[in-house]
């Protein structure tokens, strides 16, 4: 991951760490913090803890988002401090709704100049964002809005399994992964497990990330902790609850970053610091999907 981030990310880049509540690339986020980038434009529908950490670490100057909270817990305090008080630095915000933001990625992935969406009418959001504009349907219609394509410089997407060429199977909640993997200029794929190409080819309908779109492949077990990977581990809710305390001040976040991000060299060391009991408790029981027969032809 060190090499992938080092080669893919530059100061000032727009970066999308993908995964809607699921498969969030925490390891990649921590590596970005460690490498000390500045002036990044962070994009994510739900900034979640990882962007709170990145913002507190001072790497961001701008955040594009649609819902900024600690999911199921409460407020995203570092994000709020940056927006409300400019701590540790002021950040610009560029705000959408979930649908509006994913529609921007969808337009980017599809090479479209815009994507029409039935949302925003009657909301004050279009007044605050010049990327939300009305479009006239050539077939006549009520009020409809459109958003332009969004093609981040770098996206990090995670998957349960992928081959060395970057073809990846994702199951459970795919979120915006299938869109951003095709919209971004440079894509880092981080997987729980690298598998033989034949595993991917045995079930082509499950491939949500095509290798042709991927520039770097990294195997990183538990790379989404404390978020989850369907079938591999559950969300570490304790960490989400603890963040609510840790994030109460910039000082306590910095202390946390010193220990858990700057104080370790990579994800492996981060995992070694965790109690094994905690990791064991996150393991779900096994529930295999009923197999399908592709047939030999």
């Amino acid at each position, binding site marked *: 991951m060190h090499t992938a981030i080092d080669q893919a990310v530059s100061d000032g880049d727009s970066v999308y760490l993908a995964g809607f509540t699921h498969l969030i690339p925490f390891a990649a986020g921590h590596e970005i913090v460690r490498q000390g980038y500045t002036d990044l434009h962070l994009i994510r529908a739900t900034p979640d803890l990882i962007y709170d950490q990145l913002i507190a670490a001072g790497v961001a100057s701008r955040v594009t988002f649609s819902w900024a909270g600690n999911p199921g817990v409460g*407020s995203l305090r570092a994000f709020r401090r940056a927006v409300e008080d400019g701590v540790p630095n002021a950040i610009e915000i560029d705000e959408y709704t979930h649908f509006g933001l994913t529609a921007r990625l969808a337009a980017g992935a599809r090479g479209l100049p815009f994507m029409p969406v039935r949302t925003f009418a009657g909301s004050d959001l279009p007044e605050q964002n010049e990327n939300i504009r009305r479009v006239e349907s050539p077939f006549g219609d009520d009020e409809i809005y459109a958003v332009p394509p969004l093609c981040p410089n770098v996206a990090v997407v995670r998957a349960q399994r992928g081959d060395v060429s970057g073809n990846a199977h994702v199951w459970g909640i795919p*979120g915006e992964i299938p869109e951003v993997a095709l919209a971004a200029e440079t894509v880092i794929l981080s997987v729980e497990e690298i598998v033989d190409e034949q595993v991917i080819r045995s079930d082509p309908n499950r491939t949500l990330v095509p290798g042709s779109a991927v520039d770097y492949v990294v195997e990183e077990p538990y790379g989404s902790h404390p978020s989850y990977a369907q079938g591999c581990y559950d969300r570490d809710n304790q960490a989400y609850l603890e963040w609510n305390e840790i994030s109460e001040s910039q000082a306590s976040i910095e202390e946390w970053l010193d220990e858990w991000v700057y104080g370790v060299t990579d994800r492996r060391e981060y995992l070694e610091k965790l109690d094994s009991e905690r990791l064991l408790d996150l393991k779900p029981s096994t529930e295999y999907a009923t197999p399908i027969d592709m047939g030999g032809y």
Partner: protein
Amino acid sequence: MTDTEPEADDSIDSSEPDYTSTELMVTTAARELRDDESVLVGVGVPNLACNLAKRTHAPNLRMIYESGTIDSNPSSLPLSIGDPVLATGAVGVVPMFEGFSKYLQGGRIDVGFLGGAQIDRYGNINSTVIGDYEDPAVRLPGSGGACEIASNAHRTLVITPHQKRRFPEEVDFVTSPGYVDGREGREELGLRGGPEAIITDLAVMRFDEDGELYAETLHPGVSRDEVQNATGWTLAFADDVETTPTPDTEDLRLLREELDPDGVYLE
């Protein structure tokens, strides 16, 4: 308790209610849901309400989450709308863009749940900022999927505490449109549906023919004055304001023993 003779149900008629305010909100919301509907669920109270409805009068309710899980069948309470328990055992899971475009925009959601920091008399909701957008006093989480739920579900339900600061004359920012400036205002924008009811800890409110809020029922023991004092404008009341029906014993048993046994959401 050790009596093997079944207790009569009239225990709920005692002067001290045997349910909490949250439990009343959950059972009231559950009654708004009909069988065989598709409901876009949020975590917390809406989730409990949907699960309660599904175990009682609406066994074929399809619970759909913003995260793209279709007809979820959670074995335990989800911690967030993206909890893996919502994917395991669901009938389908779709990418976010598909969920929003095909389910919400496509008109496949009957009921959506919304919340917010401020709600005005036309049901317009603010979940973006308190104060000025450019220099906010409080930065709230933002729309998430709320604006598109408000715009595309066939009807929406709002569950919120009843406080004056939450029901101002005018919201600081419209995140999600209700009836805009009246039902015509909404219609002109071509929006589907609209808010159906607002369920608070004091009352159930609905929208009149102009799209303006009025109190339909008051919760047991709540006075008109209490409701009016917790509302930022002169609230209309139904001609025949009745008392909100209370939770029945089976509802409470399901909530306490099966749906939220650890009391995460039910105080």
